């Protein structure tokens, strides 16, 4: 046994038990007969048949669409903020970073219920508008925009920090050299800064996409179940309907779809090439 293998062994065992084993268990369970609770049944494709004959694809599409929309909005919002943190805010960027981090210490559900109080009819926002300015407006709570708002809000740090890292990794010399060679600020940005910070952007996008596809609380709390994402279907299968194999099959499909997308993106944007390592 090589020393490298020996040293890696504890981590490998931990990953096997903590990461691989549950995945294998869920995958195996997706082939068990419907509404059974044991690993010992005869493997069957019945759960997958049920899914493909049902309308679950709508939930899948909602989840993917919401996640994609969240990622696009986050990229547009987070890049200027990340740019500011690295290049503009100077000594204030520590404080700003802290302000973006502190909400992470509060449970996601509590923060979402905070938004409910803020957005609800006669709540913080509309109540204030009505009482002090006499403005009557419809609440966006329990609509699609509220869900998107919640997701963008919750996943902002996961986009922001990889982007910040990506932008800070662009060497000052390279930017100076581009300017020295005649480039305007916009040209420096387009030709040097943006492509060189792309790894950070890609990592942020992947991270937030994977997290957003798995989002459930936003749709429940802020969406008032107007929209049912796939995660909600999975939760129902495991709880109310007591159909673990069906839930497992849905989970496996979700993992396959997300995994395929991630692999596609990583193929298209090789991080090493972007970083100039190859």
């Amino acid at each position, binding site marked *: 046994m090589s020393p490298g293998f020996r040293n890696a062994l504890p981590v490998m065992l931990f990953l096997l038990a903590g990461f691989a084993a549950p995945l294998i268990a869920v995958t195996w369970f997706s082939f068990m007969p419907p509404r059974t609770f044991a690993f010992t049944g005869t493997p069957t494709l019945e759960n997958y048949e049920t899914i493909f004959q049902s309308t679950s694809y709508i939930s899948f599409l909602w989840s993917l669409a919401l996640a994609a929309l969240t990622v696009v909005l986050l990229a547009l919002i987070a890049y200027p903020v990340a740019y500011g943190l690295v290049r503009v805010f100077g000594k204030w960027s520590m404080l700003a970073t802290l302000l973006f981090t502190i909400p992470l210490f509060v449970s996601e559900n509590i923060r979402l219920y905070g938004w409910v109080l803020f957005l609800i009819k006669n709540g913080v926002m509309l109540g204030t508008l009505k009482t002090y300015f006499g403005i009557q407006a419809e609440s966006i709570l329990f609509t699609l925009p509220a869900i998107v708002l919640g997701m963008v809000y919750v996943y902002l740090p996961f986009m922001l920090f990889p982007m910040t890292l990506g932008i800070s990794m662009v*060497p000052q*010399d*390279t930017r*100076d*050299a*581009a*300017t*020295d*060679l*005649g*480039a*305007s600020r916009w*040209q420096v940005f387009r*030709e*040097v800064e943006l*492509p*060189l910070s792309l790894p950070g952007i890609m990592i942020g996008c992947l991270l937030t996409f994977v997290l957003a596809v798995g989002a459930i609380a936003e749709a429940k709390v802020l969406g008032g179940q107007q929209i049912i994402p796939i995660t909600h279907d999975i939760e129902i299968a495991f709880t109310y309907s007591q159909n673990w194999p069906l839930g497992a099959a849905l989970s496996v499909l979700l993992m396959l779809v997300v995994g395929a997308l991630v692999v596609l993106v990583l193929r298209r944007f090789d991080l090493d*090439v*972007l*970083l*100039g*390592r*190859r």
Partner: protein
Amino acid sequence: MLQKHANLMTDSQPILSLKSVRKMFGPHAAVDTINIDITEGEFFTIVGPSGSGKTTLIRMLAGMDQPTSGDILLRGTRINDLPANKRPTCMVFQSLALFPHRTVGQNIEFPLKIRGEDPAKRKVRALQLMTLLRLPESYYGKNVMKCSGGERQRVALARALAYDPQILFFDEPLSAIDYKLRKTLEKELKDIHRETNKTFIYITHSLEEAMVMSDRIGVMRDGKLVQVGTPHEIYTAPRSRFVSEFVGDVNVIPVTRAGNGRLRMNDSGRELVPPGKAPEFASGHLVVRPEYLRFLKQTSDADNALEGRLYNEYALGSRIQYQVRVGENVFVVEKLRQQPFSGKLDDKVIIGWDANDGILVSE
């Protein structure tokens, strides 16, 4: 020394003039009242130890920093506030600052792309420059990060030349390169200077490097230019101990003018014959380069002679250096390899030099 091109000899308007240029960082003057005129087509090198302000100076010349006071004139026009991307100058950075996400060709074409030249023309120019810098044509599509250190140097220089600057700045581009390749690249750079006829302003901490390439050298210390001259002048007539010690090993003897016009060594009190012209000298140092020191048979064989003990010898390629201890002091003597000194370690030896081979410096 070889005769330079005619345009170097004419006293036309300087391409770049610095008038009392200062850069303050808080109360500290990083660059302190610098005045120089750079002639068109000159290879001018600024030499100084780290922290002497040379990088700050060149960044101001390139437009990446503004002077606190003073003027920078390009062909007589004040360019203090002209940003780097508007100046007809270009810099080769210490880090080279190549664009790692681009190929060799794309790196070289960058300034042309920025100018909006069409791709076919860009490629022709890039390939021309690659030929000039001896980069194989097949490198055009190669990722620049896959190139070796020396190749990257050439790409960085080609990229700067593609900008077609009137002045090229170099911020110690060779400092991170190993000795042998550096020696090759120094000569190549001087050849490129000849080929292109452009004005080169180079900064380095190595006077040796400066000597190889430059038409003129400015030595910087604590933000000030302490001496400007040709490599020959800097070598043979340093005006301070600092400058003299910048080129390799020298023998520096602290001396005071004695009443009889001679020099008195501060430690031993021994009297020495001064070099001919030193009328105003009161006290300071007598500098003798190791190749001017000789081993003597008797003390009367040279104007100045000292007795000491042979302590060690060092082979320096074409020369051999001997360390001789005279009392507390250490002297170095150099001889050509073909004419070595025959003696044993710890032998008593006499070393000496002719009065006019010494250089008096007051600092």
